[in-house]
């Protein structure tokens, strides 16, 4: 396998549920060492796409090729190169962590003599070193999620597919899982689905935004960030001048009085933080709060589709 070679090529994936078109003509290409984010609101077809790539669902149309092996013609060989963590981690509550990971390894055709080291390596990567004897049913949600990731990576797959891996975790766990994903991304190719925008910006190299089963936008993270033209900042001023006055000083940005001393500044193409600070000092506005507003996925989505059309 060539370094940076293509590990996964999914072309024209289409899936019908009865007469409902769940996914339509989705094409994804993944290279070694790349992390791709599948972003989209609920019901956009992220999970369906992932189920098709992992062989859990037969596509109505389209082809899936994993490291040169065709998923439809040779599913067992193709599946052996994929590790999959579904939305709900598939865990047997009655097994111990070690037992479960051994089972996962055996099912993925790891030789009996290598299984112990594979289990240990997977546990170490996912921070489960001291959890081997614990029953899965007795683990907290964060640890279950780690066991879920461990079972997906135990056979060193070329492609790892993670469906909303950080849902329901606390902020610390989210940070840990993200850095785990980032470190896995060095040697494996990863597809990550999420509806959280900062998550994609934190860990992914490229992003595909799905909407109503279609790829609505696809670019590198940098491309996406520069394409997001609007900047929105909330400020609060002790001695607020009129809205029009603020606007005039701030490069004619749009200013909206939210309540009392709070204003929302929207600049169409550049980050206005700098001139807000300068003007506030210069004209004595008494700035006491400045808060960049995180655009929601829907807003970004609208912005992005606006610019590409």
């Amino acid at each position, binding site marked *: 396998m060539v370094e940076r070679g293509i590990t996964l090529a999914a072309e024209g994936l289409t899936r019908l*549920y009865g007469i409902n078109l769940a996914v339509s003509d989705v094409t994804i290409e993944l290279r070694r060492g790349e992390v791709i984010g599948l972003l989209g609101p609920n019901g956009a077809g992220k999970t369906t796409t992932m189920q098709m790539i*992992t*062989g*859990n*669902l*037969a596509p109505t149309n389209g082809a899936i090729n994993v490291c040169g092996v065709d998923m439809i013609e040779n*599913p*067992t*060989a*193709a*599946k*052996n190169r*994929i590790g*999959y963590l*579904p939305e*709900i981690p*598939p*865990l*047997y*509550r*009655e*097994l111990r962590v070690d*037992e479960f990971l051994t*089972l*996962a390894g*055996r*099912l*993925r*055709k790891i030789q009996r003599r290598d299984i112990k080291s594979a289990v240990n390596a997977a546990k170490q990567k996912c921070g489960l070193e001291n959890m081997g004897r614990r029953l899965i049913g007795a683990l907290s949600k964060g640890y279950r999620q780690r066991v879920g990731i461990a*079972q997906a990576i135990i056979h060193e797959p070329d492609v790892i597919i993670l469906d909303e891996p950080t849902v329901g975790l606390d902020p610390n766990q989210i940070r840990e899982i993200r850095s785990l994903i980032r470190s896995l991304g060095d040697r494996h190719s990863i597809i990550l689905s999420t509806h959280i925008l900062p998550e994609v910006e934190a860990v992914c190299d490229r992003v595909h935004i799905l909407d109503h089963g279609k790829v609505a936008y696809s670019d590198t993270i940098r491309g996406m960030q520069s394409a997001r033209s609007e900047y929105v900042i909330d400020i609060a001023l002790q001695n607020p001048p009129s809205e029009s006055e603020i606007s005039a000083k701030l490069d004619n940005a749009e200013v909206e009085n939210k309540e009392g001393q709070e204003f929302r500044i929207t600049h169409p193409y550049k980050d206005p933080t700098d001139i807000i600070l300068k003007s506030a000092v210069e004209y004595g506005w008494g700035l006491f709060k400045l808060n960049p507003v995180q655009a929601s996925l829907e807003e970004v989505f609208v912005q992005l589709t606006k610019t590409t059309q």
Partner: protein
Amino acid sequence: MILTIIGKELKSMFASPLAWVLMAFLQGIFAFIFMSQLQSFSIMQGQLANTTNAPGLTEVAITPVFSVAAVVILFSVPLLTMRLIAEERRNQTMIFLISAPISMTQIILGKFFATVIFLEIIFVIACLMCFSVLPGGTLDFGLVFSCLLGISLLGGTFSAIGLFVSCLTNHPVVAAILSLAIALGLWIINLTAPDPESVLNLISIFSHWEPFLEGTIAVKNITYFILIISVFIILSIRRLDADRLHA
């Protein structure tokens, strides 16, 4: 690969109290029947000694154990098979098996053989219990073997039916009731057919099982059971494949 699935299934079975309770319950019933039959044999012994061609210890004490065992497993195998696929679906663990590089055939066969092995443990222990009369008497080992073979085929048939029904639904309880209905239906279907040549007799489980109790091992009866088992296993595999294609 099939061995891995079998191991996993057995581990899960024995991790739940259901398997242990079921095993204890079945052994208790077998032991009770065995004891009562042994008692009546010791009472009848005097009369039997004077009759020609009298039934021996095996006919009086062992055969009834298997005859009751058949009815008891008819009702208890559905409890064992109900969770095979239905519970995996319910707990979202089916994805784990399907994503692994194994075929549907391997999954189904693994689960089927795990159930059969579990039943076999019960039957073999029942046989060992019957052998406890050996220090004081003799047994017709041919008849015991015939009963054991018959009940194993019967257990396999009920397992295959239960496995297939478990593939149809997400609810273990629904699976248990439905597989009981199918197995019981096939069991009693010949009640209304006095004519031994009737089609109903041909498809009835009971009419193919009875000869084993009399010590008759006929190819046609063995073929019948293997045929039924194969049909339900193939249906199960097709059913799981259909999930992937049409779900």
